[in-house]
């Protein structure tokens, strides 16, 4: 029984079959669709370039052929002693092995007016449909939050012909995840594309009569808006696990085999927190690559095989003609090496080092550097600074 039908859940179900699971497989999801790819939600799908069918992670025929039952329902509670789950639509189901892939949900903005009509969040296909309906050319969209999702949304909406503002509370966009030089690059790119990026812009309240009309900032200024999209991060869906008595620390705690504190239950994806030896601490990742990797390992564990979560996490983001690819995680870096100039043009790489070893790289339109960085980090990160500065471009 797999709870949560998105990147982690769909992969886990498929890998179970591949790994030789003979019994029934039930994949429970509450979005009422075939599991679909989430990253395009703020990119191509928001821009109207593909349909949900095209974004299905696997086709309906695949699940039928692999004898994976898709159940449109949501799991309310887990009873570990009996090995049963309770479903919202009534009834309960027994399981031999349980996998939690409940993912994450958006963090809500705690400001007055955040529940006005015309205020949106962006995580699911249903969210995007609402935004697309409201996103006619010429309208003013205000995006709250200058993280990846906020910036991608800004790029997609400006591509649709809207006037877009981005409000970021701290002094720079992407402040939590990249070096100041990289933030400055994205700031410049969005300005070049006529997006109004404002940093140190704290939202006081959203105002409007029946629907949102403006966003009031701490300084008193009001930014007019026909449409507001809030992208201020996510929170893991851990309530189910916590209520079942599993250990939760930011995310559902898993070991290298994707086992939770109950060895009969595995977990994978955005809802988990995993001790990564490479980085020496527990990390909750929000990326498709790690959701997929953890799901494969979890499936192996459930099939009684032993695999470990070792793959290097990576991530990407598309904005306009800029493809950012990120290898590794940069937390704890004490030095950066730049190859190319973020202040000019649209390609460069920012390497992050800790004690002289490469731990991560932000590669902007540099797929070759991305591939190179992954190899170096996997091998332990030893690399000469000159090699990084010289590393072939392109």
């Amino acid at each position: 029984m797999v709870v949560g039908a998105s990147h982690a859940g769909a992969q886990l179900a498929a890998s179970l079959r591949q790994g030789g699971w003979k019994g029934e497989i039930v994949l429970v999801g509450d979005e009422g669709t075939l599991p679909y790819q989430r990253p395009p939600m703020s990119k191509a799908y928001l821009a109207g370039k593909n349909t949900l069918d095209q974004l299905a992670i696997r086709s309906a025929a695949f699940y039928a052929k692999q004898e994976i039952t898709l159940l449109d329902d949501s799991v309310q509670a887990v009873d570990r002693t009996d090995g049963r789950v309770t479903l919202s639509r009534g009834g309960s189901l027994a399981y031999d092995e349980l996998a939690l892939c409940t993912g994450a949900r958006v963090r809500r903005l705690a400001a007055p007016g955040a529940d006005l009509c015309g205020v949106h969040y962006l995580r699911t296909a249903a969210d995007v449909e609402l935004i697309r309906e409201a996103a006619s050319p010429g309208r003013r969209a205000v995006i709250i939050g200058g993280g990846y999702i906020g910036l991608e949304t800004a790029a997609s909406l400006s591509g649709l012909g809207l006037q877009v503002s981005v409000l970021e509370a701290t002094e720079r966009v992407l402040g939590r995840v990249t070096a100041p030089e990289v933030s400055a690059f994205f700031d410049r790119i969005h300005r070049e594309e006529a997006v109004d990026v404002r940093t140190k812009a704290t939202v006081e309240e959203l105002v409007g009569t029946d629907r949102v009309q403006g966003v009031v900032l701490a300084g008193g200024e009001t930014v007019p808006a026909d449409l507001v999209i809030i992208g201020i991060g996510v929170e893991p869906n851990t309530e189910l696990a916590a209520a079942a008595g599993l250990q939760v620390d930011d995310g559902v705690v898993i070991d290298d085999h994707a086992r939770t504190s109950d060895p009969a239950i595995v977990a994978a994806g955005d809802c988990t927190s995993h001790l990564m030896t490479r980085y020496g601490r527990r990390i909750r990742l929000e990326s498709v690559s790690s959701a997929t990797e953890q799901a494969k390992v979890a499936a192996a564990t459930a099939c009684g095989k032993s695999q470990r979560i070792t793959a290097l996490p990576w991530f990407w983001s598309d904005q306009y003609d800029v493809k950012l690819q990120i290898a590794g995680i940069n937390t704890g870096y004490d030095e950066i090496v730049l190859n190319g100039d973020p202040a000019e043009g649209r390609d460069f790489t920012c390497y992050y080092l800790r004690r002289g070893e490469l731990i991560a790289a932000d590669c902007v339109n540099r797929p070759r550097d991305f591939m190179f960085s992954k190899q170096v980090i996997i091998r332990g990160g030893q690399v000469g600074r000159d090699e990084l500065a010289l590393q072939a471009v392109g």
Partner: protein
Amino acid sequence: MTKIREAITAKVQATIPMERQIQGAHLYDKTRRWVTGTNGQKMFVESPIPPVDDLEIGEIDLSNPFLYRQGRWQSYFERLRKEAPVHYQANSPFGPFWSVTRHADIIAVDKNHDVFSAEPFIVIGVPPRFMDIEMFIAMDPPRHDLQRQAVQGVVAPKNLREMEGLIRSRVREVLDDLPVDEPFDWVQKVSVELTARMLATLLDFPYEQRRKLVQWSDLAASMEQTNGGPSDNDEVFAEMRSTVRELSALWYDKAARLAGGEEPGFDLITMLQSNENTKDLIDRPMEFLGNLTLLIVGGNDTTRNSMSGGVLALNQFPEQFEKLKANPDLIPNMVSEIIRWQTPLAYMRRIAKKDTILNGQFIREGDKVVMWYASGNRDEAVFERPDELIIDRPNARNHIAFGFGVHRCMGNRLAEMQLRILWEELLTRFEDIDVVADPEYVQSNFVRGISRLMVRLTPKATG
């Protein structure tokens, strides 16, 4: 003048044994190299290529054979597409030439064979003596059409269906033998090996000797006129003589077997022998050699580098690999996209037969015009996010890696079939194909090649 030359060539061909002709060509090439001062010399010394913005537009020289290896080519092409889509380079080591870099302009030139001639040859430099005759890729209609007609049946859809089963079983053999969980060179173990098998299938060449096809072809393509030197043309000619011996042996052996009542095969030589116009091709040795060499050389580097390029691209864009694994129905479209992304042959060259105007530039009779397919396939006016591999790109098939017009690649369906089969068979076997070291690239302005690609395979978990 040319008439007389042709008449003499025909006469010479008919009377002098093939091997001797090659020897003669060799001497000729030696003399010419001496006269033109390119005798095994390096025309380019590899040095770091500057960022394109450091150059004046007139200084940009796309014939530099290190442009691809050093990864600067994208920015060079992009600048030309934007600022000088029909660009003149007056002082390259290969002489002056025009560069055409936009998709639409390239098609305009490639279509217009009345004005832009493929003769005498299709690389920027001067071809060695034996390469500049009797290959229809370097002939204009009507001669081109006659020659092409004689061989194109071998890659007709019906014939390809015949070959498919054999090609698939040969792919399976290779893949089943690959080392898993340990690094190896994909280029040697897969790309070169499978291409050799494909060509051996096409020619019905003795299977155990298939690597010879590759050797010959590699040598023939390693001329200093594309790689900027040095290369050992003496070695090339020695190898050519052995090619000739083997290929004529193959011809006579086939003829004997056919005469002895053996079922005709679906290979190239059988095809030539059973066609009225070509059944005595062996008596026109340079033409015979030209046609066979063209198929071997034409199919070799191109198919090989598409096989390597696909693995490289899917490592540079790993989310596309995930997409592929989730949806193997994307393979046919991905094959087109890989060929677009890799564009194994950077360009074809033409020579203006009369004064003409192309996108506002005045081109004089006799000027060399180079159609940069590698640039047209990254033209942002046609392909969105052109530098990325996007396996479900809706217009991937609009790429021009196979050229356009009368010379459009004859082997395109064979190449696509070979690549499709490779990916179908890979997906059923392996979970991951990880590139584990920086790839090495070929030194050439013509072939966009990968000479070494270390990978590690993770087998699919099985029950």
